[in-house]
């Protein structure tokens, strides 16, 4: 009898255990603290994106869990994204076109397909700038001269070839019928150094983010010949877009966010809901304005398609640039 009494009891315990297990499984994502990886040192664009996300998501009470920003610098994102790959769905990482180009340039095994696309958030535009007293008055004058003798014109870029600063000009040049692999690039440490070199007259032109040169343009210290946006940019309406300058291209320098591989539909839907709210807030708009960024929100589905389309584009650009054979 005693034995028989024990079995139902054990069954009951098992059942309870199973129930509580179920309950934990049903508990809505996210159950833990959220971690946002900035795959770079503090201070750069990725870090600013991650910290602004944290700031607005927490400040506006959009996400109840604690959000921590973790810096994992190294290898143009490689270190941070390798780390992301080994984490669960409570870790997300900031990305940009480097998630495509690292692989295309043969510098990384990781591809965009190794991760779950969550969203594209914001974009910067690229600018081509020359010294204020340059002999080039328009983008087409610059391109004409470059076409004639590509090696005679020194173009500053930073911090490495294969980034958007470099590839945006590669695209413009190849649209114009110049072989981009013949362009004479001088590679500086970063965007700031590139601008210093231009102001000091050590290079003939620079290709960089618009935010690096916008104030200098307004102060008359240098001249922006073209921006890569669709429409003229607020504040510098006098600067033509590449399209207006006769080169058919729009080149966003976008930043987004992605998760580790194999996130569930529910988890993706959670972020679609939260991030679509985030981009509507005034605080996020302020972040965009402060950084000279522009809203470029795409939800997870749109981002997936966008990445595929960008992958094809970058494949062509990297090949045109002559960086790989």
């Amino acid at each position, binding site marked *: 009898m005693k034995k028989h009494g024990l079995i139902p009891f054990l069954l009951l315990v098992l059942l309870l255990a199973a129930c509580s297990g179920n309950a934990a499984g049903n508990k809505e994502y996210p159950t833990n603290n959220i971690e946002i990886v900035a795959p770079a*040192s*503090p*201070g*750069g664009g990725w*870090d*600013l994106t991650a*910290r*602004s996300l*944290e*700031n607005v998501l927490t400040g506006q009470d959009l996400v109840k869990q604690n959000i921590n920003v*973790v*810096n*994992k*610098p*190294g*290898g*143009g994102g*490689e*270190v941070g994204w*390798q780390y992301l790959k080994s984490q669960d769905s409570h870790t997300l990482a900031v990305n940009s076109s480097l998630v495509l180009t690292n692989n295309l*340039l043969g*510098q*990384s095994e990781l591809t965009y397909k190794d991760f779950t696309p969550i969203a594209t958030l914001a974009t910067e535009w690229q600018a081509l700038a020359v010294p204020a007293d340059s002999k080039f008055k328009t983008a087409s004058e610059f391109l004409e001269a470059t076409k004639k003798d590509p*090696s005679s014109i*020194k173009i500053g870029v930073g*911090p*490495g*070839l*294969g980034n958007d600063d470099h590839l945006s000009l590669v695209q413009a040049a190849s649209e114009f019928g110049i072989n981009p692999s013949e362009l*004479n690039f*001088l*590679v*500086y*440490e*970063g965007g*700031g*150094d590139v*601008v*210093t*070199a231009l*102001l*000091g*007259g*050590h*290079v003939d032109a620079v290709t960089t983010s618009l935010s*690096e040169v916008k*104030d*200098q343009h*307004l*102060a008359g*210290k240098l001249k922006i010949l073209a921006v890569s946006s669709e429409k003229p940019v607020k504040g510098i309406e006098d600067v033509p877009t590449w399209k207006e300058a006769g080169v058919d291209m729009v080149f966003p320098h976008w930043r987004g966010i992605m998760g580790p591989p194999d996130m569930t539909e529910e988890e993706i839907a959670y972020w679609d809901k939260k991030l679509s709210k985030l981009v509507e807030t005034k605080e996020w708009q*302020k*972040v965009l*304005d*402060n*950084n000279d960024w522009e809203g470029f929100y795409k939800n997870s589905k749109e981002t997936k398609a966008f990445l595929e389309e960008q992958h094809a584009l970058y494949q062509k650009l990297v090949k045109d640039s002559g*960086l790989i054979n």
Partner: protein
Amino acid sequence: MDINSFMDGLSIALQPVNIMWIVIGGFLGTVVGMLPGLGPATAVAVLIPITFSMNPVSAIILMAAIYYGAMYGGSRSSILLNTPGDGSAIAATFDGYPMAQKGQAGPALAISAVASFIGGIMAVFGFLFLAEPLANFALKFGPAEYFLLMLLTLSAIVALSVGKMVKGFLAMMIGLALATVGIDTQTGVYRFTMGIPHFSDGIDFLIVIIGVYAIGEVLYNFLNIDQQKKEKKKVGKVWFSKDQWKRSKWPIIRSGPIGFLIGVLPGAGGTIASMIGYTTQKQLAKNPEEYGEGAVEGLAAPESSNNAASVGAMIPLLTMGIPGSGTTAVMLGALIMLGLRPGPLLFEQQPDTVWALINSMFIGNIALVIINILLVGLLVKILDTPAKVLYPIIVLLAFIGTYTLSYSTIDFFLLLIFGVFGLFMKVLDFPIAPLVLALIVGADMEQNFRMAVLSSSGSLGIFFSSGVSIALMILTILSLCYPLIIKLVNKKRNNKNSAEEKFTKTS
């Protein structure tokens, strides 16, 4: 200079809340500067979330105070433990540590605080009157000039190792070799990374500093721990003597402007400024043989210089939006998030902010010299700490500092390797500074050389094409020949003396 804006700025900087931030920032900077590996860049980055809720003016005042506060703090551990907290504190080990060993730790700490103060104040005045022309002067520095400036620094440091030049050159070569690790900037080729993505950004010089100095020093003392006598080390008075002040006065005043000018150049920074400050002082000195043995001038000069450089580095940041160092780069990021964009328009659009910052640097330097002199009495107690307590703490701090650099455990292995390496260097009597300095400037030096040659289509003539580059070239040759010149002069003097002796004998 606009008197009204200046007064407005002063009144903002004197608001109690801002004075509080200045003192907090200065103290925090002193502390992180002291700890190996934890530098002002890390401290500013950690504070970014806090600055979100702050008024932008207070935020920039706080961050600047941390930055120059770290210049005060950096030399503390150089003097007491022979472990610099940052690149700009390396020069303080040359004479600061020997002074402490001679029982003059107190005067060494005090004179370095005063030297930092005077250097800082001189630089703030420079900022007031010369910001604009200097910013334009800095632009003249192209790749060729940068390459030559770094070459000058390297050759000046190697020339310091009088009597063991070959070892100095060897240490420099090892440093330059280490600097080649990582992605090559011009071509994007991965060099010596052994397939580990962590190495793609190169070997962080701070790990090498912590390893070679801190861990190396601990291991070295471990070797002869049995021979150490139990006698209590003297720490000396907490204030310097009149004679010491007399000897340091002019070196401090000379080195301030040197450091300030170098600080204005984007990318040069406090390390090069303090090294140039030290070597200039030594080469001008009447008693060069005392340098490296605990000459008070040899400590005062680089201290004045590196603090002036940290003020100078604000000029390209504020007038052009160009960060001149790691810390100012982090500051730029933080300021942009606050909606304050440093650049050519800042002086016109927000003069209050700029003038408040400049004035806060006056107040900050005064606060810091007081903080640091008050701390002298406390800090010298470190020397009384028994080795078995002190050394584990140093090792622990070294590991923590290393981890905060890039949050990776791979760096621990590097730290240990360089620790053992540092031990061998000490045992074999190799100079350490050339190795560390070569690693700090190596990658930039290489890239600037290549850019210079690329932009002149392969001609080396570019290194003689401007007045600045020719001047740097001459200084480099002079500094390399300096040991030879000294020898010749001494010989002549000896000959003369012996000739005179003969003369007196015969007469």
